[in-house]
């Protein structure tokens, strides 16, 4: 006997929602999904009428669905936003060049302007070259730090007011777990915020409209809407520490599907004791980007790469910042610690 949709009660249900367990037909699922994103945007006041919004597009399922839904909701509810696509080329052959093709196709399908910024032009290094120097263990740090700045630079070039990224509920829950495992109390406090602070020039505020959407539902949406996306994992990802948090999260979801929202709820309601030392926001003395140290992380990483000392930037090195700033060479002992060991 076919199961009927629990929302409209007429049509046959074709899927079971991972989030609530209800069985829905295609049309009701689309409507529920889009309505939830709309509610998130409206209740959190993410956008103002007339803003120029850059959608961070990587060609993967999250950003493709984000672009699709943003365009749809913009028209349906008259947000009055001007949308643009912004993409970052890290220079990972076999992965990023394929996904960029998908972004270019998306641009044509959604008729949105597109800008691609690459690590090569911004920093002079591609991820492939970086991995050759650093090895396969700490390279996600480089990619993540560089990408953040690349997005901001690209946003400034495009003159957008806001960036929106495709982070979904699973990503946020994973980040909460990872910050607990790493003991990073400052990030733990900030990571569940739906949008970043908007003060400071050189910094474009970002938001996450898909914050409460489960990854599985995004995949279901993309599948049923027959959206065009690129679905391979980064070739360097198997060794990332985040993988542990991700496996844990997947197991949790199989025990209790609401765990993901429960973790986000916990993260939102955490409160830190007074008197715990928190980093203070300042600016980098070399490039002017925001930073809590005297040198921003990407300057430190770049310095390490250019000097052939790739471990500069991984681990604690505050004392070396002053030395870098005044261009003083390191002692031999320091140099030895910062080089990687090649067998």
């Amino acid at each position, binding site marked *: 006997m076919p199961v009927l949709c629990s929302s409209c009660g007429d049509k046959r249900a074709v899927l079971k929602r991972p989030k609530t367990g209800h069985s829905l037909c295609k049309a009701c699922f689309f409507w529920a999904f889009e309505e939830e994103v709309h*509610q*998130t945007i409206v209740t959190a006041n993410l956008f103002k009428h007339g803003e120029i919004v850059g959608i961070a597009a990587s060609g993967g399922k999250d950003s493709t669905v984000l672009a699709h839904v943003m365009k749809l909701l913009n028209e349906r509810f008259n947000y009055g936003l001007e949308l643009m696509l912004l993409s970052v080329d890290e220079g990972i052959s076999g992965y990023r060049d394929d996904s960029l093709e998908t972004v270019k196709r998306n641009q044509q399908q959604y008729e949105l302007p597109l800008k691609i910024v690459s690590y090569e032009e911004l920093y002079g290094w591609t991820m492939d070259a970086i991995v050759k120097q650093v090895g396969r263990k700490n390279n996600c740090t480089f990619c993540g730090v560089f990408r953040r700045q690349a997005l901001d630079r690209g946003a400034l070039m495009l003159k957008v007011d806001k960036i929106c990224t495709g982070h979904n509920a699973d990503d946020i829950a994973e980040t909460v777990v990872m910050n607990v495992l790493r003991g990073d109390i400052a990030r733990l406090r900030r990571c569940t915020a739906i949008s970043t602070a908007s003060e400071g020039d050189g910094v474009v505020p970002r938001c996450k409209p898909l914050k409460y959407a489960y990854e599985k539902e995004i995949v279901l949406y993309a599948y049923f809407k027959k959206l065009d996306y690129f679905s391979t994992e980064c070739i360097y990802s198997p060794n990332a520490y985040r993988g542990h948090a991700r496996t844990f999260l997947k*197991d949790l979801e199989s*025990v209790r599907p609401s765990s993901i929202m429960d973790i986000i709820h916990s993260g939102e309601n955490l*409160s830190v004791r007074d008197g715990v030392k928190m980093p203070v926001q300042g600016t980098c003395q070399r490039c002017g980007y925001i930073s809590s140290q005297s040198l921003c992380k990407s300057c430190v990483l770049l310095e390490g790469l250019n000097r052939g000392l790739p471990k500069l930037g991984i681990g604690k090195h505050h004392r070396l910042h002053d030395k870098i700033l005044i261009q003083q060479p390191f002692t031999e002992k320091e140099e030895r610690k910062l080089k990687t060991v090649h067998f």
Partner: protein
Amino acid sequence: MCQVEEEYHGPLLREELPSVSRQCVKCKEASAAVVIRAGDAYCRGCFKDYFIHKFRAVLGKNRLIFPEEKVLLAVSGGPSSCSMLSQVQEGLSQNAHKKLRFLPGIVYIDEGGAVGQSAEHRRRTVEELRAVFRATGLPFLMVPLEQVLDLPSSAVLSAPGASEQEAGAYKAAVDHFLLSDGSSGVTAGQQQETPPPEVQEAHTHSLQRLLGSAGTLTAREELLSILRQHLLVHTARSAGYSKLMLGDSCTRLAVKLLSSISLGRGAQLAHDTGFSDSRYGDTILVRPMRDYSAKEIAYYNRMFSVPSVFTAGLDTKTADKSSIQHLTESFVIKLQADFPSTVSTIYRTSEKLQSCKGSASAGGDRCLLCVCALDTAAENASAFSATLISEQLSQKKSPGESRQAPASQCCSIVGGELCGNGARGCCSSAKAPPLRSLLCYSCQLTIKDMASEEVLPQYILSEAERRLRRSQLREEIRGFLLEGEADEG
């Protein structure tokens, strides 16, 4: 090399060979007996000093336990709590000025009925532990978990505690004690040989039915720990103990932190994993073993023959993914093997947290089950409100439906508040009282997994009814109340 006269004229380069037998890093004389962390090898004597010192330090640093105070030690028979017991004994046997100054008692909760042990097995375990406790010379109580069904409603209430102590109060109390010669000592609590309370089969069945009504092992474990906590606090209160010492080790607390986050208890983390837990007001829960990793405790127990009795829990011998708590435990232990600083890092995170200072006053808005402040104010753009919206959007909204269906729907949609005037009729005619409005986020999830709310013990149900009636009253007179009225619950 292959000469007739083998003579080396130049200076010989002797390589430093790593030696297998190391010296203790502290006293540098005796040979090491145990390696705690990567760099720390200790000999027997130094290890014992280190272990004992940590216990005294954690008590001394958090100046919570006053001289002559009655403290109840909750011993489950496991290695951590038995180690705690032996540390307390150790502290009591010191020479006068370093002696521990409080008056301890022991309590053991017999959970065999909940786990499904036979009566014979339970009796044997109780006898073994009785022998251990008798040897300590401290007063002890053996309480079967079935007694939780007969608790009064005060078990879930937070009573006003001792008035706020200023910073100097502890020092003043200690000085006063020293001056008065402190001769009363520990013999104040005489050991009484109370016969073991008879456990009726019917009670065991009720308990098992209560736990069995929870559909998932996660909910069952949460329910068991809530009941255990209620019983412990009630026992402490009725026997006149103002502090309750729990034997959670660092490893166990790190696992508890991560599993609490996974269960949605972010607002109550400091209560669940901090050194002191003052949610019950007059009885304060203290965790002195929180600096010890499970490994250190195991080494100590083995080297110095601390007796302990193993009792199976609900998740013993179950698969990894059977419950969230069990899954988290295996995750943390496995990660610890690859990254040895995992447990201590998680533990340090727990030290930096505090409980959400919500708008809850002392008696007012506390969760019915876990007695922590409620965190279900569904603010705009929060995970909780997003969940409620999703539930709403996935279900049929038809006004022409029968009265019954909207009753259960509207209670879950409205969530934190009671239904308005018109729907009051539907709530009272519904099958079960809207218990959810009285619970915090994670207790709501636990109750959601239960087949029926009526199997909950009477004290919980009657307290729930009382609170619902009171909030109904408040709704009625809301227009006439002035803002800022303190509510005594």
